């Protein structure tokens, strides 16, 4: 279980306890947190669950991107070097306290 903080582009904060094994994206969808669309449902084929990890320490601590994630991020709205696809961030106790920022929009 990990407590994840989701911050919308307008600054609205949401917190959710997300079970291990789910993704950060699923944590948002299951808790009706706006700002993450996840059109493809977690298949790494749509780039609509894009988030920023603004804390550099956290960004480095996350599991590395797998092949294909950066390719999808190319197609995301305003990707930056601290961008991740939240469907690829799988919850474990290690992620407790992670904060993700949502982009202005997902497409």
């Amino acid at each position, binding site marked *: 279980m990990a407590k994840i903080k989701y911050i919308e582009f307008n600054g609205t904060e949401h917190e959710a306890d997300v079970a291990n094994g789910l993704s950060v994206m699923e944590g948002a969808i299951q808790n009706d947190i706006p700002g993450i669309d996840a059109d*493809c*449902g977690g298949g790494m*084929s*749509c*780039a609509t669950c894009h988030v920023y990890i603004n804390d550099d320490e956290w960004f480095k601590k996350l599991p590395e991107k797998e092949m294909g994630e950066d390719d999808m991020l190319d*197609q995301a*709205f*305003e*990707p*930056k070097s601290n961008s991740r696809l939240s469907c690829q961030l799988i919850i474990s106790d290690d992620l407790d306290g992670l904060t993700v920022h949502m982009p202005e929009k997902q497409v």
Partner: protein
Amino acid sequence: MIKTDVVIIGAGPTGLFCAHQLGIIGLKCEIVDNLDKIGGQCIELYPDKPIYDIPAVPKCTGEELTNNLIEQIKPFNFNFHLSDRVQELKNENNKWLVKTLNGKEFETPNIVIAGGVGSFEPRKFPTKSAEKYDGKSVLYSIKDKTIFRDKSVVIFGGGDSALDWAIELSNSSKVTLVHRRDEFRGAPASVQKIKELSDNKTIDLITKYSIKDVKGNGSLESVEIKSESGESKVIKADYVLGFFGLIMQLGPIAEWGLNLDKKTIPVNTENFETNKKGIFAIGDICTYPGKLKLILSGFHEGALAARGCFKYARPDEKYRFEFTTASSTIKDRLGVKE
């Protein structure tokens, strides 16, 4: 005006198998899809990716799955209307009148929405100022490449479309290719070619930059790009091309008075009918308790929706369940002889 038993919106695996089930029970259908080819997400998003959870098929690619489904419905000779989109629905005397973007019209008692997450549209630049030039000098696809001759063309993107067009247009235009990072996702041979063209100054290659603004006075004059650390550059541009892949938009489906839950359509699980009589929704676009976004679930949903369509297409007949192994009627429909 084409009269038919069912109009299927979406030629992905779910729509195709629903067509098969309609053919098996003796109904006719017409299939409309926004893409220029059959296969939906399978063909557009992952034609080469193996799928491992199609029952009795241990492994197949999106393209193989599509080709097999096309083969499976061949005996029924259904019409496909590709590169077209259902725009308007109107109910008249228990029939749906369907109009497409290209002006086709259908009259049908049943519509099956198998639209995935909506229709594929090119992903556009986030900058507001680009909208003004959309379709004129800011383009997301190329129909006539001769318009670029001797012009300054700035191309954004890192995939095959961006690379291929940069290579192609470099013969006769001043090409600048801008991409947000140093790695490209295009084919290795194209990436190699781009690097050569950049080394010998045939094209300008700018990485780690993205679009900031487009500028012009009536006609497009330049494009401003920015790096993540805030530096910016202005490049002269007659045309700006963006290749960021496709996104899925619900589009006109949202305007047909259907109940919506986020981007999905709630249905009953008996026949996958929506809140509108004669409109069914199957596959990724439908939702119900326990819904799984799997191709195999879409097949099941299509089979039941097809039976639901029978009731409205043949109100005076009783639907009789038959197996393909035993029914001579079905074998006739399939054109198989024993």
